[in-house]
């Protein structure tokens, strides 16, 4: 046996917290790599939406050349897929609690903030990896594999996923069972999805419904993604007007940077609240 290695655990420091964030992240990626089925099954639902719904509904629309309904749906389906993955990733903290591992993390001499941030970042990262798989399908719907477009889309997906994982981790501080957690996530995610413009244009909605869509955070992720996609495909103006109307507050066309700013702010608030909840609890 080797000589006894004595270790003095260092005082808490920013560097130590950073190590904690990194290892929480690393663990989640290890688990994700081990769990390849998750990535495959995660693709099935969006593929159905994209090909079945997209193709099916396209027959109702006039033929419009390069850009059609599938092009329109593509960013929405990408966002949806990433959101669902983010939801599952956030659920891992409930899972950790159920299997005791959360306790191992919470008794360590690191700040709870480091653990929460690590969890949120890893959730968002894993969801974005799912997004990479989605983007690989771009060719199927006539979206070019332009590196700038792809990176832009990934960035936006990451932001959206971060906000949603933050939301999930915030809930997980209070909700102790998987069933309740996924029930609640499903309940909030499904209406968000249908009221975000992911699957149909929001332009023709009655005003009460369109007000709701403006309160929906997912709207501000889907629209910038769609605008990015449409800036890289050639669509005739009529199609573009119908399919890519943008988001309007009253008559004001909300610019993309502001939309993304809303998402960033939302992510910050969610993660902040999650940290507070975990500090207070236990």
């Amino acid at each position: 046996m080797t000589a006894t290695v004595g270790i003095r655990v260092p005082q808490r420091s920013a560097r130590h917290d950073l190590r904690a964030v990194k290892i929480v992240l690393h663990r989640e990626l290890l688990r994700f790599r081990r769990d390849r089925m998750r990535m495959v099954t995660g693709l099935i639902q969006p593929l159905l939406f994209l090909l079945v719904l997209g193709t099916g509904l396209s027959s109702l629309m006039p033929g419009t050349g390069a850009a059609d309904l599938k092009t329109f749906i593509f960013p929405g389906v990408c966002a949806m897929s990433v959101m669902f993955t983010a939801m599952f990733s956030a659920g891992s903290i409930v899972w950790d609690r159920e299997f005791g591992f959360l306790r191992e993390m919470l008794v360590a001499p690191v700040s709870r903030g480091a653990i929460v941030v690590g969890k949120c970042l890893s959730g968002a990262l894993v969801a974005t990896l799912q997004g990479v798989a989605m983007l690989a399908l771009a060719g199927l719907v006539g979206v070019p594999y332009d590196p700038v477009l792809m990176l832009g889309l990934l960035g936006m997906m990451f932001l959206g996923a971060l906000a949603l994982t933050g939301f999930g981790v915030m809930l997980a501080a209070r909700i102790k069972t998987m069933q309740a957690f996924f029930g609640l996530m499903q309940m909030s995610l499904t209406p968000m999805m249908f009221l975000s413009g992911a699957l149909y244009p929001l332009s023709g909605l009655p005003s009460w419904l369109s007000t709701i869509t403006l309160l929906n955070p997912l709207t501000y992720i889907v629209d910038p993604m769609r605008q990015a996609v449409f800036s890289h495909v050639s669509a005739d103006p009529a199609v573009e007007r119908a399919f890519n109307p943008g988001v309007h507050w009253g008559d004001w066309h909300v610019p993309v940077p502001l939309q993304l700013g809303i998402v960033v702010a939302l992510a910050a608030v969610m993660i902040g609240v999650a940290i507070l909840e975990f500090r207070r609890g236990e």
Partner: protein
Amino acid sequence: MATAEADVGVIAEGGGEPAIVVDGLEKRFGTVEAVSGIGFTVAPGETFGFLGPNGAGKSTTINMLCTLLRPSGGTARVAGHDVVAERDDVRRNIGLVFQDPTLDGYLTGEQNLRFHAELYGVPRSVTADRIRQVLEMVALWDRRGDRVETYSGGMRRRLEIARGLLHSPRVLFLDEPTVGLDPQTRASIWEYIDRLKRAEQITIFMTTHYMEEAEYCDRIAIMDSGRIVALDTPAALKAEVGEDRVRIQTGDDKAALAALRDRFGIEAALHEGVVTFSVPAGEEFVPRLFAELGVAISSVSVSRPSLDDVFMAYTGTTIRDAEGSANDWMKLAARGRR
């Protein structure tokens, strides 16, 4: 990393300072008083056991000492730090093995330890050596690359003990370290704990409801309904409860009875050819008996009062009765789920 050198080195600090000092510690949940004003001191290097049925307040106490629960009253210092005011300092100096498993089954044994090392800020320069060392100590080095979900219950426990030791804590808390394991595995876990006590300078604070295991402790506190009802070495506790019973068979029982009375001042009883009497330390008494009795002895047996007798004397019930079989079944069921 300039501080790395300073981080590694001496394990024990503060020499003779007690490892744990508890004074008037209380915990109330609503109107229920789980722990009502207990106090004790644990010396460095000591193995200190909490013995009691489920619901006696053992886990509540351990959770307060580990900074997981905030006491309702009283104070506790662990490794020289206050568990409320200096929570992180306490955490840096303790290792924990919980009653319920806290491993990630998806990761390998080594990855679980690496996670722990990073979380506790173990200097990278020594992480690999230390991981190897603790894994060898619990004989899991060969299985380090296997996922934990393929480990048996005993192996998981050992891995958790290795993990608890990884950052060289001054105090290791073991909350029911062998609950739910079969007797053989339990014995082997104790071998490992014994080995680590020799290898590392460490104080062990443990809870158990197995009487046999309490024997491994230097001192034990018997807890009942939130109070410590007795605290001493196992031998002293047993001595307090009753003296050892010595039974002998002799060639001449009458002469033996007389000799015992005259030479040792002991009143013995004769039942069915067996001479029976009580002495404080039976095993030490036997050689004297042979030397000085002057009557041929054909057989001798010494029996000690067991900790069961001790527990009975202090709580008025056996630990098994106090526990209730339903509880055991719940535990088994919970374990089977994994």
